[in-house]
């Protein structure tokens, strides 16, 4: 290879202007399947990341959880192979095939040793074209999902995450639990699952990325063998637009635990917003990255109020949030939240320092490369770039986009986003001194 991957990553880090150094190949198969490929001669394995348009947010009414359950069952038997036989074929080829569903997409990944990729793609073809949804496997997976829901309902961090989505997206499909409700799950039939698979597994809206020691023509042939037989189809309609909250909310969910988990959310900007890189810098200064952020410093380092205090950007197809997370003893969580709010206000009013902006930009330029430490990680980056509608040469421009962020941009975005008047706060535990909405 690894000259190509190396060139790719070097470009991210140090050679932003060297357009052309990056070699993401765009492969279009005879049957019209499009894929991005990074050839990596040193990789003993092929990593494939792909996804179909439509996710849990478009679960049909009364069938919440159907997409998630269907995704799991795609690898539980296909064609002539029942679940056990299908799994053994994977093991014999040292291949691993899995599917999962997010709010907006149904994703899959295949990892197979180069020598066994024929078999890997055959299993992928079977899973997509002839999933079985055998009654006993449906029962088994359903019971596992229901048990996982029960369990999540007792885990403070999961309760907080679910509650936050329900509040922030009230009235919008994103509010529903992606795993479904126990009642809906109990009613799902193999026929429902088959229908859902047919509604999502299609070539239009398909996104594919591959990394490995493979020629373009060979990849094209294998992709056609796996995806070619799927109908072209019409992807599910996008979820409706989201109306962000217009007033603050504070919600307390009682759980008998010594430490309260707190999540706070603000409406943010989506990945396609021109200010995206400004938002990355702003988030890094507030609570992103490692141990340098304002939240980490003020909540943890100076006051010892929590083990972690961080923020992150979440961008969905039709919505975006800036989410702050911390956890503190029930008696001290009110103070931790007070400190977080004070930091939001301070950053909104005073903006960042030049040094903070410079440091954030250095970190963000380098950080992407740090995570690209396996073929699978590179494949998933190539996949998400396509989901985000970026061009193959984006990586050569990324550092410039980060470098172009100015302190005034960050000030401007801080004023626009860090608004306590639309802050949603969810606290799970037995917090002392926190007043919930009436």
């Amino acid at each position, binding site marked *: *290879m*690894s000259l190509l*991957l*190396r060139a790719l*990553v*070097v470009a991210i*880090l140090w050679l932003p202007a060297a357009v052309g150094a990056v070699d993401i190949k765009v492969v279009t198969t005879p049957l019209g399947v499009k894929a991005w490929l990074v050839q*990596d001669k*040193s990789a*003993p*394995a092929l990593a494939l990341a792909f996804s179909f348009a439509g996710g849990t947010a478009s679960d049909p009414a009364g069938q919440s959880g159907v997409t998630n359950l269907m995704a799991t069952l795609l690898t539980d038997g296909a064609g002539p192979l029942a*679940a*056990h036989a299908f*799994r053994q074929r994977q*093991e*014999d*080829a*040292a291949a691993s095939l899995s599917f999962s569903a997010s709010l907006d997409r149904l994703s899959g990944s295949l*990892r197979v*040793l*180069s020598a066994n990729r024929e*078999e890997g793609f055959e299993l992928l073809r079977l899973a997509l074209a002839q999933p079985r949804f055998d009654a*006993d496997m449906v*029962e088994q997976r359903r*019971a*596992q999902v229901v*048990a996982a829901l*029960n*369990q999540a309902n*007792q885990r403070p961090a999961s309760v907080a995450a679910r509650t936050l989505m329900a509040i922030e997206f009230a009235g919008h499909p994103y509010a529903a639990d992606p795993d479904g409700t126990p009642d809906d799950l109990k009613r799902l039939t193999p026929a429902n699952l088959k229908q859902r698979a047919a509604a999502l597994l299609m070539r239009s809206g398909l996104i594919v990325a591959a990394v490995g020691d493979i020629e373009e023509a060979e990849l094209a042939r294998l992709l056609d063998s796996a995806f070619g037989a799927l109908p072209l189809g019409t992807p599910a309609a996008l979820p409706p637009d989201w109306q962000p909250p217009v007033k603050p909310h504070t919600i307390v969910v009682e*759980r008998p*635990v*010594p*430490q309260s988990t707190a999540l706070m959310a603000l409406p943010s900007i989506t990945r396609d917003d021109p200010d995206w890189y400004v938002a990355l810098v702003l988030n890094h200064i507030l609570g992103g*990255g*490692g*141990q*340098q952020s304002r939240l980490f410093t003020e909540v*943890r*380092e*100076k*006051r*010892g109020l*929590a*083990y*972690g205090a961080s923020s992150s950007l979440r961008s969905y197809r039709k919505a975006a949030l800036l989410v702050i997370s911390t*956890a*503190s*003893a029930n008696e001290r969580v009110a103070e931790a939240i007070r400190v977080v709010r004070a930091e939001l206000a301070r950053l909104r009013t005073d903006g960042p320092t030049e040094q903070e902006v410079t*440091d954030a930009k*250095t*970190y963000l330029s*380098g950080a992407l*490369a*740090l995570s*690209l*430490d*396996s*073929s*699978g990680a590179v494949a998933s980056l190539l996949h998400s770039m396509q989901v985000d509608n970026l061009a193959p040469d984006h990586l050569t421009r990324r550092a410039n986009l980060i470098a172009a962020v100015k302190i005034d941009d960050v000030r401007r975005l801080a004023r626009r986003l860090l608004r306590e008047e639309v802050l949603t706060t969810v606290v799970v535990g037995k917090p002392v001194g926190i007043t919930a909405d009436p």
Partner: protein
Amino acid sequence: MVRRRALLGGLAATAALGLSPSAFAKLFIVERRRVEAFTLANGLDVVVLPSSRAPIVSQTVVYKVGSADEVPGKTGVAHFLEHMMFKGTATVAPTEFSRTVSKNGGRDNAYTSFDSTGYYQTVAPDRLDLVMRMEADRMANLRISEKELIPERQVVLEERRMRIDNSPAALLEEAVQEQLFGRHKPYGMPISGYVDDVKKLTVNDLMSFYLKFYAPNNAILIVAGDTTVEQVRKLAERHYGPVPARKVEPRRRPAEGAADLPQRVLRADARVAEPRWSRHYLAPSYRKGETQHAYALQVLAHLLGGGETSRLWRALVADSKLALSAWASYSPASLGLTSFDLSVHPAPQSPMVEIESAVGSQLGKLIDDGVTADEVERAQNRLLAGAIYAQDSLSSGPRSYGALLSVGGSVADIDAWPQRIAAVTPIDVIAAARHVWRPERLVTSMLTPQAGSR
């Protein structure tokens, strides 16, 4: 001394040792990995895992000390010290370590386990010099002040609340460790310490632990990624070379676990939504007990409960539908004895007694009827395939080297792992099972939503 090793070079031999010529045999076309190891004059062991797949490099320093080296009354000191290692030296201000790594586009963190304490950073290759300088600095020049210690104690306690006190399963696990290895014994005390102890630890406690164990001759430096052994040697000599060796007492682990086994540990907790049945057997590790079983036990764990094609899963989940999942696990990289663990998530309405008897009959059946050559081979293949994929990732290499070398293993042991796994026979598996599955070595634990088992 420089040794040249190919981590998976041994795989080529597995075919000759009789593994099936199935698709698995094709695994061996793997880039031979160069591993170099040498030791500085002050006793610091250095391992280099070069890989040019991406222009990043990681440094890990693992100290051969963990929570199991604490004494009763001072538990939690190893973990607290790990936190304070970020709080400055004679020349680096508190928190500046991580800030500097971040400012330079890198990431860093640390961990504490029973037997070792590790610190690691991932950076661009031209920042290796920087992180090696800072890591060597805190190996020799740590400063702990009362002012920094006071808020950090709260952070440590919050970490414990988050990981342990908020989780009934984690609380039960601590209770099991205490029953299995003995109260106030090395692995019987929680890694993060007892809260009452942590509240009392002083600057002096932390500094004496540091001075006792943090020395180049008690550490391993592992550098992985886009670098060369020459470069690492040069930088290691420059930064770690001047750190003086110190006399470090040898570590001790008991040859036995708790005396009064078998035991049962029950935890009924309103916060439990789903029950769990588990069993834990005292088991030999690579370093303690009947160590000759360590490889067969890895194969045994895989064929018994290493996923959905395993015996337990087939019997309890797929066939009888008594359970929603069933697992077995075994980790041999331990300085003292370790445990062989079984864990079952019962299906709704499955009584615990039925789970226990179903597991019992699977174990009995395995001992009585033996295991087939085919299932041993499949388990071996899964283990070996996992190792090959691990090679594709920059982070998993240093982690496994650190875990093994910190408990006295050698690079040669790591090299030989594939052959040793491939050499395990069905007879070895049964012998290992017989050795470990004995009533006087076990603790059974149950986690239930309300009092008693359901």
